C-alpha cells in the first residue's frame, strides 16, 4: 500500500511534515469549571474540567497534593459504525491513565492539597490521533478552569510509513500497522512528558522521559529513524502549543472585553 506517493503527497493530500487542520474552542460546557473542544482534522474531542473541589471519597484524599482523576470515553456515534462502545474497556482505561499521568505531571498539585480535579474527555468524532487530541483538549480545559499549570502540555503523533516519517497520522495511516509514537511535550520547559510507542521494538528508553508506556510491539524501527520520527512529533507539539497559546490569549481578551475592562 502506498501511503506517500512518489510526488510526496499523502492519501489525503498533505505532505509528510504537515499536520491536519486544527481548531479549538473554549467554553463548550457551561456547567463545567473549564471546558474546550479540540479538533485535529476529522478527530473531534470535548473536554470538561471540574475542580479543584472537595474530594468525593475521603479515603482518597491526600494531605499534600490534589487528586487528579480522568475519564476518557468515546461517543457511540464517534466512529460511524454503530458499535456500542463499552465503558471502561481496556483501551479506555489505558488512555484515561495516560491522560491522567500526563496532566498530573503539569498541574501544580501541591498548591491544592486535599482537593480533587476531575477531567472528562469524550471523543465526538474519531479519525486517528484521539489521545493526542484528548491531551490538547484537556490542557485547554484546565487552563480555562484556571488551574495552575507548570506549562501547557501538548501532544502530537508521528509515524513511519513507506520509509517516510509522517506527522499527525489519520485513521487510515494509523491502522496501516507501521510504527508510531505519541509524544506529550512541555514547550516552555522543552521537556517530553509522555512517549507512547506503538508497533515499535528496539527502542531505547531515554533518561529524559518522565513517563513511558510501551504499547504492542511488532515491527521494528532503527533507533536513528526513531529519533527522526520523535523529533517530528515534537515539532508538531510545538506548533500545537503556539496555536493553543493564541486561542487562550484571544479568550482572555474576550473575557476582558466582556468585563468591560
Amino acid at each position: 500500500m502506498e501511503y506517500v506517493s512518489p510526488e510526496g503527497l499523502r492519501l489525503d493530500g498533505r505532505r509528510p511534515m504537515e499536520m491536519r487542520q486544527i481548531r479549538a474552542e473554549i467554553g463548550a460546557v457551561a456547567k463545567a469549571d473549564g471546558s474546550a473542544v479540540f479538533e485535529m482534522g476529522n478527530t473531534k474531542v470535548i473536554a470538561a474540567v471540574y475542580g479543584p473541589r472537595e474530594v468525593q471519597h475521603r479515603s482518597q484524599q491526600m494531605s499534600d497534593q490534589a487528586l487528579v482523576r480522568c475519564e476518557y470515553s468515546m461517543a457511540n456515534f464517534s466512529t460511524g459504525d454503530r458499535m456500542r462502545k463499552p465503558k471502561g474497556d481496556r483501551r479506555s482505561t489505558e488512555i484515561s491513565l495516560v491522560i491522567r499521568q500526563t496532566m498530573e505531571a503539569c498541574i501544580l498539585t501541591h498548591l491544592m492539597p486535599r482537593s480533587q480535579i476531575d477531567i472528562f474527555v469524550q471523543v465526538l468524532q474519531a479519525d486517528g490521533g484521539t489521545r493526542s487530541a484528548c491531551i490538547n483538549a484537556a490542557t485547554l480545559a484546565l487552563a480555562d478552569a484556571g488551574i495552575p499549570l507548570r506549562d501547557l502540555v501538548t501532544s502530537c503523533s508521528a509515524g513511519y510509513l513507506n520509509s517516510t516519517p509522517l506527522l499527525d497520522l489519520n485513521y487510515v495511516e494509523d491502522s496501516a500497522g507501521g510504527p508510531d509514537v505519541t509524544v506529550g511535550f512541555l514547550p516552555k520547559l522543552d521537556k517530553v512528558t509522555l512517549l507512547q510507542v506503538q508497533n515499535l521494538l528496539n527502542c531505547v528508553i531515554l533518561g529524559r522521559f518522565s513517563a513511558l508506556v510501551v504499547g504492542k510491539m511488532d515491527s521494528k524501527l532503527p533507533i536513528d529513524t526513531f529519533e527522526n520520527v520523535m523529533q517530528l512529533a515534537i515539532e508538531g507539539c510545538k506548533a500545537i502549543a503556539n496555536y493553543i497559546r493564541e486561542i487562550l490569549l484571544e479568550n482572555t481578551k474576550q473575557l476582558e472585553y466582556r468585563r468591560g475592562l
Partner: protein
Amino acid sequence: MLHSKTFVKKTRGGKVNKQVREHYLRDDIYCGAPICKVCDSSTARLSPSASTILIVDTNVVLNQIDLLENPAIDDVVMLSIVLEEVKNKNMGVYNRVRALCSNSLRRFFVFANEHHKDTFVKEMNKESKNDRNDREKAFSNFPVLTSKSIELAIRVAAQWYQTHLGGATHVLLITNDRENKRKAIEEGISAETIESYVKSLDRPELLDLLVQPTSEDVNMVEVEDLRPSKRKIMYTEHKPMSEITSGLHRGIYHQGKLRVNRYNPFEAYVGSESIGDEIIIYGRTNMNRAFDGDIVAVELLPQDQWHEEKSLSIAEEEDEDEDVHLVPSSTDDAPRTTSLVQGSAGDLNFASSHPSGRVIGIIKRNWHSYCGSLEPMPMPAGSGGTAHALFVSKDRRIPKIRIHTRQLENLLDKRIIVAVDSWDRLSRHPSGHYVRTIGEIGDTCNLKQEIGGRDTESEVVLIENDINSRPFSSQVLACLPPLPWSVSSGDLANPIRQDLRNLRVFSVDPPGCKDIDDALHCTSLPNGNFEVGVHIADVTNFVHPGTPIDDEAAERGTSVYLVERRIDMLPKPLTEGCYQGEQRSLAIHWVHIFTDGIVNFADVRIEQEMTPDAEIISKRYTKSVIKSCAALSYIEAQARMDDSRLMDPLTTDLRNMNALAKIMRLRRIERGALTLASAEVKFQIDTETHDPLDIGMYQIREANQMVEEFMLAANVSVAGKILEDFPLCSLLRRHPTPTREMLEPFLRTAAAVGLNLDASSSKALADSLDRAVGDDPYFNKLIRILATRCMTQAVYFCSGDLSPPEYHHYGLAAPLYTHFTSPIRRYADIIVHRLLAASLGICKLPPIFQDRPQLTSVADNLNYRHRNAQMAGRASVELHTLIYFRKRYGIEGPVYLTTRSEKGGGEWFVDEQQQKIRKMDGSLSYTVLQTVKIHMEVVEPQPNRPKLQLMLI
C-alpha cells in the same frame, strides 16, 4: 499553504458503512513546465521548448504502454488520477509508467490533479449501477472515482493546463474514447486519438507499436456488420466474472494457474486446489484463449469425454502441423502426472483417472512480451504499407500472434519482441503489436551472419528468462571502493578482523575460473587434530545494505552462466579484482589479490577443529585477512594429490583435507544424502569466434568433491548459527521431500529395466541408486539424471514462514542448509553473510531482515532469479549444441534413449507396464534405457526454430 477541506464519502462492501476521509486541496502543486511563470519550476520535468504537452487518459496508458516507452513520445503529463486507475487495473503497466516518470532522461511529469484546488472533481453519482468495474471498486478500501468522473477530471485538468500555460504551448488530450473526445472538443480542449497523433508525428515505425483497437474499444456492431457471415466464432465466450465467482463458490468451476505442456502446446494442466488434482485441458478450443501462466476458471468435462478429448487433441495437432519436441530439459514444468505418452491405445485406465476440463473464463491474464520471429511469408502485393503477419514465439507454449506491421521487409529476418493485446473469440490467433527488434536471426548457412545471429540468440535467451544483462549504472559503479584497492593498515588494525596472512591458504577452482570466492586451509595441530579453515570472500565489506549496488545485486539475485559469457551479479572489480589488464598468470593473480589485492583480502572465516575421523570439535567464525599461496585448478590439485613424489607442505595439506573430506562424504551418504546427477555438458569455445569447438561431459574429480564437501559443511554450520540467533528471520534453503506420486514414473521406468528401487526414504533411495549399476558405466548416471528430474527444486525461504521440520533439505539429508560460500555470484549468500555478521555482533542487522514479509519477498525473488538463471544456462547449452552439430552435419554415434519416441500415433504400441514401445506389427521394440543407434541432425521443421532431431536407425 492553504488547506481547504472537503469530504469524500465512500461505501464499503460486505457491511455497507460510510467512510469519511479528509481531502486537502492545495495550491502548491506545480504544473511542471519550465516556461510557466507562476509555478515553481525547480521540480519541472517537461522540456522548456515543448511545443505540445500531451495529457493521456487511462486506456491510452493501459494499451499503449509500449508506445509511451518509445523515446519519440515525450512531454507527457501523467495525471495522478490516471495513474491510480492504471494501478487498480494493471500493476505491471503501472510499474512501467512509474519507471518512465522517474527516469531522468524522459520528460514525463506527474500532476497530482486530485489534490490541486482547481482541478479536483467531485464524484458524480449519475453512474449506472450495473457498471461492473465500478461495483468492484466499491469493495476497495479507498475512495475511487467512477470512470465518468475520471474522464471529467482528465478534461478539467487539460482545460486547466490550457488556461494555465496560456498560448505558450499546445496542450493536447489524447484519448481513444469517442465520447470523451467529443466532449473535450466541445469544451474547447484540443483532443486526438492516439492513432491520429502518431500519424501526425510522421514516424511510420511508431505506428507498429500501436495497439490496434480491440472490439472492446470500438463498436462491436461495426465489426460484425462488415463481414457478418465470414467471421466464424472460434471460441466460446468467457463467462462474466460474477458468474465465475458464484460458480467457484458452488464448486462447479475450479480455479488454478494454467500451465501449458512445454513439449506439446496443445495440452495444458490446471492445478486445482478444490479437487486436489490436476485438470488436463486438451486442445486450443478447450483452452479457450488462455495463455500459459494465466489464472483461469475451469469447468470439468463429463467423465465419458475424458478420453475422447485426448484423441481430439492429437487430431488437431496434426492439423496445425506442429510436432512434438523431444528435448526434455526441466523438472519444473513437466506435468507431475507424466501423461506425456500420447496416442496410445494401451493406457486407457491411466488417462481416464485424470479429469479433463475446459476453460470457461480467465481470472487473471499473464500476458507479457514474447521473443520470436515472424512466420516467413511473401511480401504482400498491394503496397498499402501495412501488412498482417503471424509471429511465432520462441517459447513453444505461446500460440502464434497476429501483428500488424508497416515494416514487414525489415522484420522478416529479425528476432523481435511482440506484446499481446487481445484475443477475441472470432480469431484463431491472439493479436498483438511489435515492440522492438533484438537482432538478426542466427542463420544456418551464412557464416558471417552467424556470429551476429548467435549474439541475437543469446540475447533472446536472456530476454526470455528475464535476465538483466545491461551494464552496471554509474550509481552502482560509484559504490565501488576506489581502485586499485588494497588492504589498508586500518583494515589490519580493525579488531574484528584477524590477521591470518601467515596461514597457508589456497584455493581450488575450475580451470579458468576468475570469480574466485573461496579458499581453504588445513593445519595439523600438535594433538593430532586438524584445523580446517573455509575462507569466503567478504563481499559485504564492499556491498553495504541500502546502497545502489546492493539494490542492483538483490534485483539480479545471481550471476548467470551462459556457455560463452557470464552475466555478473556484481561489477567486475568486485568479482575478479582489478588487475585484469596486467595479464598475469592465474596463480600470481590470485596471490596478488590476497596480498594487496582487491576483493578477497578480507574473508569471513569458519574454522573447524576436526579430529582425524572428521568429527567437528569446535567452530569459530571470524572476519580476517588472508594471503593465498596458490590458486589451483581442480586438475592441478588432483595431480598434486596423485603424484606421490610431491611431499611439499601444500600437497600434504591437500591430502589431509582430502582424507577428511572422504570421511565426511561417506558419513553424509550414510545419513541418506543423494548423489544426483545432471547431464552437464562442457563446451570448448574458440577464443576468436566463440564457436563451440568440442563438446564433452563435465568430469568430476576427487578434488571437486573435496572442495564441495567443505563448502557443504560450512553452509550447514552457518545455517545452524544464524538460525540460533535469528529464529524468525534467517534465510535458509530447503529441498522438499518428493511425494510418492512424483517418484512414481521414475520407479516405473526403473522397474522396466529390472531395477528395484526403494524410495521410502532418501537413504533407501540413495542406496538403491548406488546398487543400480548396469553393464555400461554411463547407466548409473542416467538413472541418477532421471531421479533428479522427479525432484522438486530446492528453494530459499525465510525461516519464520515455515515450521522447523519443513526446513529439511532432502537431497543433502541435512536438517538445515543455507548458502554461504559464494557471495560473489549469489545474493542469498550476501544476506547470510550479513546475518552471520549480526549474529557475531560485528554489525547490526539491516532493517530489511527485521521485516519478515520483505525478507520473504526477497527470498521469492531469489528463487525466481535462480530458476531463470538455470533455465538460461540450459537454453544456452541447447543453443550451442545446435551450433556445434550444425557444423558437423549428420554425425552418428551411440546415444541412450531416455525418452520414449512417440512418432506416428497408431503405429507404435506403448506398454506402460514394461515401459516398452513396440511396433504394431511386432517387428521392432524398444525398451527404456536400451542402447540404440541414432542419426542426429539439426532440422528446422518450423522456420526459425531450429532443433536437434534424433532419428533411430
